[in-house]
């Protein structure tokens, strides 16, 4: 009897011991349903694709590229619109270039946070991808890694363009940190020139990897190839988009030779073509899909167009009054496709207002034309070539006239002041695309159209580092 009892006791002790050891580590690894653990996500190729799509999706937000850094805040800073809300929460701070107004401060903070959050997401992909090379096809490995590097470079370059002083002012002014890790550690703040070097480093690595890109290899991709994963290259940072970014970055650091080289490679590739007059008249391609080196995928584009660019929209509306539009497009405006076809006339009380149509839903059903917000486009390459040529005493009028011809205008003669001329030409093509303010900044213009403010004196071209950064990290003044 006692023997049996002892046996049972022994069994119990053994059971408990085994039970607790056996169960601990695996059983305690709980998997949340609405979330995926990183190890699980990166165990398949589609996980990498999802992570990369996520990185792009993070850019598709109002504080970043579906509003503020396109037509919203960036548009107001460049005085592109005749009307915008200036009440609390509106653009009063932007109007006076006072970045301490809390609504403006919050927008600046959101840009910083949003872009660095995107960088961190890209960093995790880059941290994991090399150890998972075996589960990816070679092409996808090259492309996903190349794109992740390119996103990282793009975001840092954008941060530099807003938070670093203009190269012309002081290229060795402390600017922003270049973050390459997912870790709770503070990355050092780099100078403007150091950041641009890091940007170019990442872009060069990306370009090498993206030589596998079908847009570059000209391999035809259909739905049958990996479910058509590489079909819509213009929605991604493809080989030419990265080339375009390189051109932009070289121009930023005044390396005109390389800027020209990169921009010309894009132009000469023949992949991108001008939108035809007929397509513009028919509203087949208001966004200029064929000219886009890179455009982000914005499913809510029609809502955005209704909210900000129609006479029936409420307080957020951003119209250009007809007199101002006449100034923008000058005397030759009746020939200019952009003036003629890219603006809608207001009705009733708003009959003097003109509304930009670039974001309007195209009449062509093909998804190639739809839901695309321009991030980088062909005309910028021509302008880069032109500016580079100007400073390297090369033929700078031909590239400008190439764009003019594509827009229905005649050949322009050599202007007295080329930079002023380039500015007006640039403005015609980039209205509502967030590039004009950065153009002004690169040129370090003290005064700009429609503003009495001294932008240089106000340090308007450099956003202050946000509090969420300076309160937790030791940062030097970036302005």
């Amino acid at each position: 009897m006692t023997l049996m009892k002892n046996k049972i006791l022994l069994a119990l002790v053994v059971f408990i011991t085994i039970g607790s050891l056996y169960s601990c580590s695996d059983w305690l690894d709980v998997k949340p349903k609405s979330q995926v653990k990183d190890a699980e996500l990166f165990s398949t190729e589609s996980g990498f694709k999802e992570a990369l799509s996520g990185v792009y999706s993070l850019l598709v937000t109002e504080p970043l590229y579906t509003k503020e850094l396109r037509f919203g805040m960036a548009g107001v800073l460049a005085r592109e619109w005749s009307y915008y809300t200036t009440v609390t929460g509106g653009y009063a701070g932007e109007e006076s270039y006072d970045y301490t107004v809390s609504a403006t401060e919050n927008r600046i903070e959101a840009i910083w946070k949003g872009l660095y959050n995107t960088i961190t997401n890209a960093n995790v992909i880059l941290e994991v991808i090399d150890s998972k090379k075996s589960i990816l096809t070679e092409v996808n490995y090259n492309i996903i890694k190349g794109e992740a590097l390119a996103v990282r470079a793009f975001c840092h370059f954008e941060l530099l363009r807003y938070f670093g002083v203009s190269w012309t002012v002081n290229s060795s002014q402390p600017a922003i940190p270049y973050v390459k890790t997912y870790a709770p550690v503070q990355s050092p703040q780099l100078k403007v020139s150091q950041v641009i070097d890091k940007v170019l480093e990442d872009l060069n690595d990306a370009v090498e990897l993206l030589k596998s890109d079908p847009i570059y290899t000209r391999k035809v991709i259909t739905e049958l190839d990996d479910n058509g994963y590489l079909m819509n290259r213009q929605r991604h940072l493809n080989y030419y988009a990265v080339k375009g970014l390189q051109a932009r970055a070289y121009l930023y650091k005044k390396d005109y030779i390389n800027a020209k080289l990169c921009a010309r490679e894009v132009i000469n590739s023949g992949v991108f073509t001008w939108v035809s007059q007929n397509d513009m008249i028919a509203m087949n391609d208001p966004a200029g899909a064929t000219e886009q080196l890179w455009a982000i995928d914005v499913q809510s584009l029609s809502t955005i167009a209704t909210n900000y660019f129609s006479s029936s929209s409420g307080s957020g509306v951003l119209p250009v009054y007809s007199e101002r539009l006449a100034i923008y497009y000058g005397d030759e405006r009746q020939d200019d496709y952009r003036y003629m076809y890219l603006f809608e006339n207001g009705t009733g009380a708003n009959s003097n207002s003109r509304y930009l149509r670039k974001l309007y839903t195209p009449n062509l059903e093909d998804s190639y034309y739809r839901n695309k917000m321009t991030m980088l486009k062909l005309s910028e390459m021509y302008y880069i070539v032109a500016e580079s040529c100007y400073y390297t005493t090369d033929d700078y009028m031909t590239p400008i006239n190439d764009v003019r011809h594509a827009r229905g205008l005649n050949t322009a003669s050599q202007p007295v002041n080329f930079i002023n001329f380039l500015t007006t030409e640039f403005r015609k093509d980039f209205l509502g695309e967030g590039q004009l303010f950065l153009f002004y900044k690169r040129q370090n213009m003290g005064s700009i159209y429609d503003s009495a403010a001294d932008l240089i004196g106000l340090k308007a071209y450099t956003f202050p580092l946000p509090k969420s950064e300076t309160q937790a990290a030791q940062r030097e003044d970036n302005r």
Partner: protein
Amino acid sequence: MKKLYSIVLGVVLLIAAFTWIPGYGQTTQKLVSINLKDARLTQALDEINSKTGNQVLYKVEEVSKETKLITVNLKDVSPVKCVEACLAGTGFTHSVQGDVIVVQPKGESQRQPQQPAKHILKGYVTDVLGKPIEEATVVIKGTTKGVATDSKGFYEIETPLNATICYSCVGRKNLEIRMKGEKDLNIILEEAEAEVSEVVVTGMFERRKESFTGSALTFTNENLKLYGNQNIIASLKNLDPSFIVQESVEFGSDPNRMPDMRIRGTSSLKGDYEGNPNQPLFILDGFQATATQIFDLDMNRVAWVTILKDAAAKAIYGSKAANGVVVVETILPKMGKLKATYTGDININAPDLTSYNLANATEKLQIELGAGRFTRTSIEQQQFMREQYNALLSEVERGVNTYWLSKPLRVGIGQKHSMHLEGGDPAMRYSIDFASNNVAGVMKGSDRETVSGSINLSYRYKDIIFRNMLNVAFNRADDSPYGSFSDYSRLNPYWTEYDENGNLKRFLGSYSPPAFSGTTTNYANPLYNAAVGTKNFSKYAEITDNLYAEWQAIKNLKIVGRFGFTYNNDSREDFYPGDHTRFNDLTGEDYFKRGSYSITDGESKSVSASITSNYTGVFGSHMILANLGWNLATTSNISHGMTAQGFLNNRVDDITFARQYQENGRPSGSESITRELGIIGAVNYSYNDRYLADLSLRTNASSMFGANNRWGTFWSVGLGWNIHREKFLLRSKVINLLKLRGSTGYTGNQNFNPFQAMRTYQFFTDRLYDNISGSYLMALVNNNLQWQQTHDINGGIDLGMFKRLNIRFDAYVNTTNNMLIDYTLPSSTGFTSYKENLGEVENKGFDLTASYMVYRNPDKDAFFSINASAAHNVNKLKKISSALTNSNEEQIDNVGTSPLTLYKEGQSLSVIWAVKSLGIDPITGQELYMKKDGTTTYTWDPLDQIVAGDASPKINGNIGFTSEYKGFGLALSFRYTLGGDYYNSTLVNRVENVDVAYNVDKRVLSSTWHNPGDMVAYRRISTSQTSTRPTTRFVEKQNEVTLASLSLSYDFKHLNIQKYKLDRLKLMFYMNDVFRISTVEAERGLSYPFARSFSFSLTATF
């Protein structure tokens, strides 16, 4: 999950396997040795009885007549043999009847069958919990004839038919029963009064109170009921001063709001946790329970509640115990005939509006006029405004003075019925409970209804006890359709609710500024909303099944297995029909969006299992109680919700009649799983019951922590000295109890979001990118995240004097290390915060309970005892990260009208920050502040904020008495808090930062600045709302005394109620929170008023 089930299944099978183990442990007949020389027969039989446990029955008067002296010398023989040897040569013979040997004069055995007056009485003696009482004496009154119960509490005695049987046992009340010819009589012996609860139930094991070194307070059902019949939590706050239930100024006595409670101070910062991070752990019948379960538990089912406060008591709960543990045990079924107990309560809740001091119609209009609401500069405009004023004035003159406060209120009358049935024999016992509790709050339509039933079965088979408790509860909590009370307290008394035709107004009034200077404002009638048919309720259904198996494996070793399963299904629905005034702004093409309905459904399941082995060993003067245990638990929660809009017809109140889902809305939901397992070891050692030691060690792991720090180890050491057991005090008439206790140890706190220690991705639900749903990082996680640990040091003294005075004092220092705080990161890392174990909080204090029996007379069943308690706690933040300091600075910039919670090293967590005020300048009417450098200014600067006070009281506790006289009982308890500071926000918002369009405090009229020279306390009121920011002007000392409870009872035990077939009948009357005296005059119960409660209770057992 699969693994868990296999483990749990294993446990169940193993427990089940014990059922078929054949019968060991049967009592074998004791062998006795006897050595007598020339002894009388009585002596000899006595001797045998003492060695066999009263197996020999005889009549003293008969046997003492025997003259033959006996000499025997026997070794290890059966008792029968022994008796036989003693009787040899005497005039007596013996017969064996069951276990009993009956000694009779020779020849009498033939006569026996003719004695019809004698018969055999059998039965069991148990304690109230149904545990058998061994060695209880069963004696026929007036004789020395008696037996003792065996190890299972069984006895069998031969008695005359009309005998009175006396049952007695050491430490228990004696009981006399007059027989009426029964053959079976099962007896329950209650514990003697002086020794209430000899054991401390820690939920996992039992500890002898005498040798326990931890700080634990146990309250019986009777103790709890002395202070109220509402719920356990409401009674506990009047019993233990360190158990604090935070009064909510906002939500008052809302019956559907869980109270915020804590034991011995605050150790965690809010914000890092889900729910209330300082809430104690609740254990119900051995398993973790939610605060809601305890709140809704029928009080009549509770056997006792133990509050575990120091490390020695709570360390067995390891990672969850840092905030203290409340252990609740329900009543186990008692053996006996079917017995039914009914308890019925009527609870009356009456609103307490004494804190409101609002202006009446005349005063209000005067205030508006004074504030310049009807004053304009231009003549036309002035005329326009005057007309509006005159219209209001004529209303006031007509006698309109609506008392809005009473409109949404009622005297809530709730009922509670509870039925308890129990009975059974030693092998099988059962109890069935049914309870229905309807709490009616003071706002109309605010109800909480709980219906619960439980079946408790206990089965004993040899050395194994199985018990199964099945409990089912349904609850429905309705919020008042009248909405928030604050919507009424602000209405102007010159408005009326009905129009001339007697219809309820949709709008009470309007205010139009002159043309081109603004738009007309219409003031909606909240009463209108109560009539449109809103629905706001939540409900839950809960099933709990607890299985318990106890096996006395070998003599000193008991093995207990527990398995618990809880399933809870809850839902919440909120419906506002289209006519509700909240939709007034939806006009034009948005009109169809009026009306909204939202539904949330949740489900939670928890499975827990534990096995503990308990060893008791006595080696001479050494006594050891050792426990070893293993436990495992998993809890999963899931919830889904949706909102629909567009209900244009008030008559349809179902979500299916919605026009559409909420515009841009998405289904909501949440989900979480937590798992944990642990191993527990605990030893209690005592030497001679004088020197005591407790040791416990628990190591447990949880899925909530970072992979690098999954396991945590918690331990405690306690030492004690029972000085009253020392020789020099053993005979003392003064000191009957003097015990010194001390303990130290570690426990943890893990009330936080389960997934924050894990790098996870979430998927976008609102956008695709290139037809792929992208994923994004949730947070920057800390793989090294570990348990928040609290180090407790506790010293205590228990003192009993003159058997009348009892004092219990505990002093403690609790330090919480590794406190989880949000470490602020530079946002260039991609995220702004990161969880770190960085902070340190210290809580120091003492708690004291004392009672003095002023008068006691058991003959008259009378006593009068006074009791008092006090608790003191000082809280100090010892270490915070520099990043937290930064977040403070960020907060300073955004300071509003109420003081901020700023965390500063060396300060308490409840400090009130405000700028030093020098009062209202009589000349300008502006507030004069003192800057940090001592200069004065009219400008409020956040950097001038100083520590203006501390909201936690210096001391709090209860004072009261309990008394009884011949069945009448009276108990009274006052609750007091002294020495705290209070920021009188309601005063700020009702006297200064007022919106003059709505009603205000009376003091606006008398105490605000109007003209230069006015020496007043408050600033001037104008039409534009001012915002008075935190200033010392509104910091007040808070000293309060509340009549917490009064109970009056009558027990019919002194009347002959048996003739009505009643065993017990008791009537009680309670009053709770009836009055309150406070140094602070502030509106309390803003969204829901406070209530005074009165109740009648009747308990009958038959």
